[in-house]
């Protein structure tokens, strides 16, 4: 036993400090918002009463202005943090992407030409494309299949929980789980990785899966992990959408003699179209930003790197802030059309409803 709780005291002091700060800030804000307007209102009422006594007309609209200040009080923490944490940084990153590695000199579009010109980085972009094409498609398909198959089956809750559980596991934890599945030991020894053991049972030779660059096999094996995590999310959303299909429609279709196949294509799929789009869009965005899996499994070696991982490496390991920023901006640009597409869909849905 080599762990002394007393050594951890500093951390708990910090935690306590954080909690005190939380109570003081939030409590203080509510108190200020509560007390000051009340005081002001009392004063104003007194003044209005005095004015009414003197026969001066009261200006309309004064109340609305006060509401504005109050709203600012409610919004201030959120807006302040957003500005510091997201808005200004995003602008700054865009600016940095036009500067050199240590941000001392303007370089125009050099970082962007570097991005599209380097074979290494081209490969990174290609990998990201493979991720984005494969993960949402397969995760949504599996999620949908599973949601339909276990719908109203016995033990549905347990069956769903099994698929949904990986959502709670960190990407790092999930990576370790799969690293173990892909583990390799040379031919004569017993295998400890399940995948190689299965290969051996079928009479094959064990392979070092994560080194197999042909047909992007290693990238695909990393993709399996992401699908494994995301299918549960797809399944939950799609299952709720399926359950929301009015029972009368299903009943009517059955009376008309539709078989399972027709039921799926003509009734289920159109009815859950909106949910399906949400699932695909959400998973696509998550996939674009995937970082933890690649970093834990291969650290981007053996041609498996993706944009998010390369951005981290360039900015924080090689000190090439310009390159890293350009990659981040590119990531942002990739997300925009997807989001516009989604907003349009939501609008269409609203106008139809």
């Amino acid at each position, binding site marked *: 036993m080599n762990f002394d709780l007393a050594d951890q005291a500093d951390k708990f002091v910090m935690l306590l400090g954080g909690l005190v700060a939380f109570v003081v800030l*939030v409590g203080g804000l509510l108190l200020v918002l509560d007390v000051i307007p009340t005081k002001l209102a009392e004063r104003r009422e007194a003044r209005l009463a005095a004015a009414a006594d003197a026969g001066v007309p009261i200006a309309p609209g004064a109340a609305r202005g006060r509401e504005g200040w109050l709203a600012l009080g409610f*919004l201030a923490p959120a807006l302040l*943090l957003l500005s510091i*944490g997201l808005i200004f940084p995003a602008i700054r990153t865009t600016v940095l992407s036009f500067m050199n590695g240590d941000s001392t000199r303007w370089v125009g579009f050099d970082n962007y030409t570097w991005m599209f010109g380097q074979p290494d980085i081209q490969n990174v972009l290609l990998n990201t494309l493979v991720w984005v094409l494969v993960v949402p498609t397969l995760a949504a398909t599996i999620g949908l299949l599973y949601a339909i198959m276990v719908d109203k089956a016995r033990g549905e809750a347990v069956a769903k929980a099994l698929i949904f559980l990986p959502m709670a596991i*960190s990407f790092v934890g999930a990576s370790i789980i799969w690293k173990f599945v892909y583990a390799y030991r040379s031919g004569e*020894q017993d295998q400890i990785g399940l995948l190689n053991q299965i290969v051996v049972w079928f009479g094959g030779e064990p392979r070092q899966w994560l080194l197999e660059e042909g047909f992007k096999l290693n990238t695909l094996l990393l993709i399996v992990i992401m699908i494994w995590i995301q299918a549960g999310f797809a399944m939950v959303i799609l299952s709720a959408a399926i359950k929301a299909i009015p029972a009368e429609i299903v009943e009517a279709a059955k009376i008309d003699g539709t078989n399972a196949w027709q039921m799926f294509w003509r009734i289920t799929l159109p009815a859950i179209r909106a949910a399906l789009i949400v699932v695909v869009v959400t998973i696509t965005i998550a996939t674009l930003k995937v*970082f933890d899996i690649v970093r834990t499994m291969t650290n981007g070696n053996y041609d498996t790197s993706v944009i998010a991982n390369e951005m981290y490496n360039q900015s924080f390991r090689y000190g090439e802030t310009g390159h890293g920023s350009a990659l981040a901006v590119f990531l942002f640009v990739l997300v925009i059309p997807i989001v516009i597409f989604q907003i349009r869909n939501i609008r269409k849905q609203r106008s139809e409803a």
Partner: protein
Amino acid sequence: MTTTNPPAAAVPVTKSGGDRPNTAAGRVRKKLSSPLATGIAIVIALFWSVPTFGLLISSFRPEDDIKTTGWWSFFTDPQLTLDNYDEVLFGGSASSGQLAGYFINSLVITIPAVLFPMAICALAAYALAWIDFRGRDWIYILVFALQIVPLQMALVPLLRFFSQGVELFGVQLLPAWGLSGEELFIQVWFAHTCFAIPFGVYLLHNFISELPKDVMEAARVDGANHPKIFRTIVLPLITPVLASFGIFQFLWVWNDLLVALIFASGGGRDTNPMTVRLAELAGTRGNEWQRLTSGAFVSMIVPLIVFLSLQRYFVRGLLAGSVKG
């Protein structure tokens, strides 16, 4: 004050018992599709559970066994030990994991990084939904749109904000924070809080804006001001959705690697959460399976407990955040 219609659950979870197999067509359909469907479902469920199950079994096997035979041989030769957990949590050597300390770091990082966004987002969502002021819609759209800014866009400048302060045209507007050691927790809390706001405001706003209008108006007529309405009426009503946001944020922060790598790694053992340590173990000592398997489970245990006990709220949050759009 009467609550005529309670706030509609954000989820259209209807347990329709519509599938009655007592119609002729229904019976035929059931017969045709069931065995195959059940078969595929079982295969998928196995595929999903077996990797985790294998890791769980391995984490209890003696080191030599893990390294020489597959976990499935456990069934023919069951050997169980808690040594792996003991070593990975409390081991003395630098390579042993020492996860106990990292576990505490994860806790210290997560608790405030969940509480702050919950409070800040609830306040902001309430203002955007129920306080009437100019520019309200624009601010909401702005916050909503910020959801799409990838974290990667914010990392470098935010790190500089902490380490160098704000300098504009040679004038130091804000000083550098100059944090070190355990103080780095503040940085991590700050970053996580910032990044959580767009989604949090969006999720809570969806719900708060659908609270019944007459309740709010009745309270106003009774002379309650906004802070009072927020505290006494809104907060109790939004507890379920606030819980679901809290679970989201909890899982996200507990499982995060990227933010921690950038904002906490300066403190080393004193501030890094478990994810960072595990990624390190997986990278440098990738074949010490006895540490990796047990370590992975130590890191999973808290989110799994939270997840399994509060799954209902989590699912509700998922659906409120995505199906309603």
